[in-house]
């Protein structure tokens, strides 16, 4: 599925202002951002996309318009959102989240002169000459998280809390399980999902996250990976309450920096997903006039996904992780993307 048109993302700092056609102020690039439910400020997925936008704004001065999705959206509403952004003169439009897939596909056809990006989808529905399909190899990052978890665990028992049981989160689960088993074939892995689609409250229910993780800790697990949006906060609280030797792994951004200060020290590491990198690269290319449609896959290689090291809790595993990472990028380890 992925990798057909894989480009190595240029590192954010590599692009300098002024290399593009527009300069800040005078004819700044108008950018439309259509966020997923939660929007800017969600300290997670959407915020990561927003960070990419902010960076571009800082680097080469753009004029952003931001819109946030509603949980009761249908395809037509999403189409309308993108369409409206295009009609308002935005030249680059980023659709954050796979639910926009079909909508992007449709609207992009209607506005051939506008460049689009879709995060987390590479299906036929969102294919087009003016669409950048930005996807990530979450399973690879999660594989490393699994390695870190199984290596850190003293009990040989770890856990995974997924927010909502959909294909995307199952990708995290698949990689995590494979990674943990790679280190310790006998590792015991508890898996819980908080809700089922279309009930997305599992991404916003720390009470449930806490209950689930507490259960895992009490039953012997000592590392729990939270791929559960804001419900992850509950997982961190559970780890904190479980006491020393109990860890949580964060997701999407470096949560040891963004989570509530009181729980940061129990975050072993976070599986960072560089949505910001994808967004920034897309905007840079539009700005530079080098945009090309296709699927851009961000993986371990280009730091599209990686394990954060804040807190230094996994410093001891540095070598092991590097070794595994090399094996993955070389293809020696095949990471499954489904459970």
């Amino acid at each position, binding site marked *: 599925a992925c990798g057909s048109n894989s480009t190595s993302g240029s590192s954010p700092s590599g692009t300098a202002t002024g290399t593009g056609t527009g300069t800040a102020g005078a004819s700044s690039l108008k950018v439309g951002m259509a966020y997923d439910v939660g929007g800017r400020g969600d300290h997670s997925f959407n915020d990561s996309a927003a960070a990419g936008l902010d960076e571009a704004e800082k680097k080469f001065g753009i004029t952003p318009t931001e*819109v946030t999705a*509603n949980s*009761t959206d249908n395809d037509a509403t999403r189409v309308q959102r993108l369409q409206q952004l295009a009609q308002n003169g935005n030249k680059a439009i980023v659709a954050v989240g*796979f639910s926009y897939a079909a909508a992007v596909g449709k609207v992009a056809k209607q506005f051939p002169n506008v460049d689009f990006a879709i995060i987390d989808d590479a299906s036929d529905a969102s294919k087009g000459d003016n669409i950048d399909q930005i996807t990530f190899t979450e399973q690879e990052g999660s594989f490393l998280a699994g390695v870190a978890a199984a290596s850190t665990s003293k009990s040989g028992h770890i856990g995974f809390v997924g927010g909502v049981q959909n294909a995307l989160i199952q990708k995290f689960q698949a990689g995590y399980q494979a990674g943990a088993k790679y280190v310790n074939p006998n590792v015991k892995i508890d898996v819980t999902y908080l809700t089922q689609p279309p009930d997305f409250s599992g991404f916003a229910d720390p009470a449930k996250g806490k209950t689930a993780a507490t259960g895992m800790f009490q039953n012997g697990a000592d590392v729990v990976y939270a791929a559960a949006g804001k419900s992850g906060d509950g997982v961190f609280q559970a780890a904190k309450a479980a006491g020393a030797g109990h860890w949580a792994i964060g997701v999407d951004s470096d949560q040891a920096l963004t989570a509530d200060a009181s729980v940061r020290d129990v975050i072993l590491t976070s599986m960072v997903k560089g949505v910001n990198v994808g967004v920034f690269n897309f905007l840079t290319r539009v700005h530079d006039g080098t945009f090309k449609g296709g699927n851009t896959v961000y993986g371990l290689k280009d730091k599209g996904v990686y394990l954060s090291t804040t807190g230094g809790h996994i410093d001891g595993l540095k070598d092991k992780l590097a070794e595994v990472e090399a094996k993955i990028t070389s293809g020696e380890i095949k990471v499954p993307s489904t459970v």
Partner: protein
Amino acid sequence: MNRWRRLGLNLAAPLLAIIVAVIVTSIILVLSGDPVGPVWKVFLSSPVEGAWARMLNDTAAFYLSGIAVAIGFRMNLFNIGVDGQYRVAAFAAAVLAGQAWLPGWLNVIAAILLAMLVGALWAGIAAVLKTARGVSEVISTIMLNAIATGLVAWLLTKVQADNAGSNSTGTKPIPESSHVPALPFLQTNISNIYGLSLLAVLIGLAYWFVVSRTRFGFDLRAAGQSDDAARASGIDVKRTAIIAMLLSGAVAGLVGLPALFGNDYQYGTTSQAGLGFTGIAVALIGRNHPVGVAFGAFLWAYLANQADSLQINAGVSVALVNIIQGIMVLAVVIAYELVRRLGVRMEQRQVAADLAAPSEPVGAQA
């Protein structure tokens, strides 16, 4: 009270409601330092291209959902479960249609029938629990909504179609031959009115006819007004309750179909949720009347479709739309009550005026 005055009073209510909603919302805007003028400009400006079609599509879905709820209300049953019913039904219909066992239209019709059947069965659980075990339908439908979520999610894993590169899962796509063509007006190249939106019109007519013209409709209303009187008049109240719930579920089963056959062509994790709850508000605004519900559905659709403009053109949180919708619901009923009280007072004054002439003290009008 003469006819014209009564008509005037009836028109006054919705108008008053809208004025109240505008004033209250403006106050909230001012208090929180948001711009007032631009917000109302957004609501009054003509929607973007293609939005009318989308609004009508939404109206159709809200209407179907509203009627499903209204059928229950007519019988004094509070069917909170429309949400679960339509999701189960749309899923079943999508699975069947995706199999393409039947050609073209036959496939569509079979799917529609299946959706109605499944919706009715899912509602039927609540009906049976109520009549046989005395379980309040308020509880059972809340529970069934959640159960529907788990059940569909599980079944979806059994039937999901391969969709390379996508993170959403869905049923097998419906074959092209069974796509229902759009209605021949308000078409743009990215929006149109789903063909099956016509179901809303049909259901509206059928609802009006059944409720106000048929024996069953009479029984339904009678049982809804007074169990005891209905029973004494020979109505089998339990049976009527079951039928009402089944009909409500059958109509709920249709809610997701226009979009399914007109746009999505599969049921999956990105299919629209929450339509059932909208139906409750819409039915209440429309006071369970076939035309009133249509008004409510359109109002809702209009506001919902201006939500993005609000963010884009006025820079105000979409939550404002929810506030306006809620205030509107409340304002409508309060306005009706105030207007009713006004009417009573006017009548009383008239009686006082007529006091000189000896009047018959019989026959008060409520």
